[in-house]
């Protein structure tokens, strides 16, 4: 390959993202090998901002679990957890992680260190039950950062209102309690200037993340929200608050802007612009995407990019002059936004359809995740009464290959695209 500027810049996000990811896992393996411990956190409200200011290595068990599915070994882990009494109807992420723990951290990407603390939000209730497993297994402190969500669809409390302030004060009090707990766990004194540094890096990442998503409003799309997007999400979560994470996303914006300028898309010929609603089908990740790209369909945006980044898509900027208060506002707004994109996703999807010139909506509810999946059928029904965009509803799982039936899926996807094609023909547009 010649080293033209294009070859250097196009695809850099995926290359560097994968490398950073491997480095991150290597670091975790080293920590595990030296009997070091890590903070266990979750993608929706990782509190990486606080944990990184204590230099704590962080483990994302959700990411560990999805990696077992992508690498096609999830079934081994699921079987082991089910042998220990966990029902087939329980979240596959929880079960795969349970088996990882039972195997002393053995994982396809390396070795996972044991936890010293688990920090979770209420963005997903299963987080709480999951952390209780570690609490029992390791006798570690678990901290639930309770972030009240939107009470009624489309009516979030506004910053400055009494209701918002009540919630914010609760979040701020918990941040301070978490800091005290981290001091106890690490034996380190909290350094507010270090927090400012972490928040500064996070501001940069947030702002870039928002830009990257917005750049996909262009035609052709400059990244695939399902496949490329998952790589970006990994970095956004794992390296949030670090200089490496900030740099990566700055360069990613550069790459995407370059692609926009030069009309470089994700497909040779982009035919259909799609929104993905739900969680990807990791057991057949590449193939699942091909079922759409084979028809010229590409995923332009997804609710996954919103909620699985913990609401980073809002691009929230922390006020470094008043970091704790600002963190409480940012957490409340971002995690609430992540929850809204699961419970009230029709609002987001409607705006995506308008802003991203969408031809179709793909709903993918899964057995493992009731947080994301419970309301999708109802949401689809109501959205279909408001906007005239064809949608497809296919169920499978993010972990469990026993409920992934590729042939049946392909039949339905093919029929969907045939419908899209005939609709386009009827409308006389291309």
């Amino acid at each position, binding site marked *: 390959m010649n080293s033209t500027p294009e070859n250097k810049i196009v695809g850099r996000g995926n290359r560097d993202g994968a490398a950073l990811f491997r480095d991150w896992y290597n670091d975790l393996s080293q920590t595990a090998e030296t009997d070091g411990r890590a903070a266990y956190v979750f993608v929706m409200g990782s509190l990486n901002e606080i944990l990184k200011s204590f230099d704590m290595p962080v483990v994302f068990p959700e990411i560990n679990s999805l990696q077992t599915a992508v690498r096609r070994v999830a079934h081994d882990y699921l079987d082991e957890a089910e042998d220990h009494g966990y029902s087939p109807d329980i979240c596959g992420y929880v079960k795969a992680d349970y088996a990882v723990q039972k195997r002393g951290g053995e994982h396809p990407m390396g070795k996972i260190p044991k936890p010293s603390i688990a920090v979770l939000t209420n963005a997903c209730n299963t987080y709480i039950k999951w952390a209780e497993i570690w609490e029992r297994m390791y006798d570690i402190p678990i901290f*639930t950062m309770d972030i009240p969500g939107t009470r009624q669809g489309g009516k979030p409390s506004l910053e400055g209102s009494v209701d918002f302030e009540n919630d914010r*004060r609760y979040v701020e009090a918990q941040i301070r309690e978490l800091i005290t707990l981290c001091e106890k766990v690490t034996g380190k004194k909290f350094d507010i200037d270090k927090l400012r540094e972490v928040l500064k890096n996070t501001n940069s990442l947030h702002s870039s993340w928002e830009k990257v998503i917005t750049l996909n409003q262009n035609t052709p799309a400059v990244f695939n929200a399902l496949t490329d997007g998952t790589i970006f999400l990994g970095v956004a979560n794992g390296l949030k608050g670090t200089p490496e994470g900030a740099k990566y996303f700055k360069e990613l914006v550069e790459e995407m802007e370059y692609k926009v300028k030069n009309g470089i898309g994700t497909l040779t010929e982009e035919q259909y612009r799609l929104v993905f609603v739900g969680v990807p089908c990791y057991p057949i990740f590449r193939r699942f995407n091909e079922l759409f790209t084979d028809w010229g369909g590409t995923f332009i945006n997804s609710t996954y990019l919103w909620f699985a980044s913990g609401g980073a898509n809002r691009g929230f900027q922390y006020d470094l002059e008043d970091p704790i208060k600002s963190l409480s506002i940012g957490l409340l707004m971002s995690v609430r936004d992540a929850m809204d994109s699961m419970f009230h996703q029709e609002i987001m999807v409607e705006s995506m359809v308008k802003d991203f010139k969408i031809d179709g909506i793909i709903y993918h509810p899964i057995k493992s995740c009731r947080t994301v999946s*419970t309301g999708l059928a109802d949401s689809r029904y109501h959205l279909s009464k408001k906007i005239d965009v064809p949608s497809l509803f296919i169920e499978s799982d993010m972990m469990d290959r026993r409920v992934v039936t590729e042939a049946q899926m392909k039949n339905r996807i093919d029929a969907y695209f045939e419908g899209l094609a005939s609709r386009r023909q009827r409308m006389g547009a291309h």
Partner: protein
Amino acid sequence: MSFETFPEWRGKELDEILYECRELLEDTEYPTINRWRQNGGKVAGHFQVYFPEEIAHAAGMLPVKMGGAPVEPNSADSHFGSYLCSIIKTSLEVALNEKVKLDLFISHPICDAARNLAAIFGRNFDYPCQILYLPQNPNSSHSLQYLTDEYGRLKRLVEEITGNKITDEKLRASIEVYNQNRQYLREIYDIKRDTPWLLTADEGYALLAIGGLIPREEHNEVLKTVIPLIKSRVRKKEDRIRLVFEGGFCEQPPLDLIRMLGQTCYLVDDDFLIGMRWILSDVSLEGEPLRNLAHSYLEDSSYSPVQHDNRKPKEEMLLKRIEACDAGAVIIAAAKMCEPGLEEQVAYTHELDRKGIPYFVTEFEENMNSFDHLEMQVDTFLENLLF
């Protein structure tokens, strides 16, 4: 009381009163709620597990437990995907088919499915459909203030819906009604524990559960009447296994399943509709009523798989329940597709294994109507304990 939603029990013998309670519970026309509405009353429907009913009551609303129903979710089914519990579908079903008409719907962040329910109701109905964010970090020093504020928000919403101002005096009066109710329910559970042969499992359950369908003053009158009658029943004690049922905190097993269990053992304690017994003793009538309600929720309350509180490890709480009622075995149940219940089963059984306490693990669904297989399994389990 001048107006009654449930007059059927009046002037009847104990067995007939209990029959009427069971009939009411299984009546999918919801006569009591409809009578309330026909009389001009407003209705606040709330999903499991706990809701501070006193706040709605103080504004003159009828708080109703939207706790599933023995119906097929024919209309609701298309609003949901697969892999979901029955209770969220049937709760929507009775609202969609207008068997239960509401003026307010509240769900809670108890589980991933229930959190979606307010949004689903909100898309289908014009009345306010909200989540009451009960604190999930009860160990935070700020949780009491937060919950007091959240109850304050709910109070404003209820005032807006009813047009009735909720004064502290009204709230205290409602708390008093509910304190009385909690006292009566404790007495019912005392009977179950101390003299279980006087009250069968399904009778006890029916007496508890009708409270979710009628004004609490009426419930109090029913309980006040039946408790002395139950105590004076002449029934012979039998040599039966004393059993705890764990797993009824949200979706409820069918009444026939509870009846079947009661025929084979003494069900001396359970977590059926635990939200109705969530607060363990009287809520204080001194000082700020909303703060007192919040304080009792956090500091003087039961446990369930859907609340994490560092002070209440679930296995330890279960062991305390078993010990307090001197039970010899436990049924560890979970509603089908109920993730928190299924997860807790693992923790419970591992702990019971450690303690050598016999248990039987099962799943149920509110709409199941065949119990032969389950009955045989329970019989076998109990026989193994006896012989």
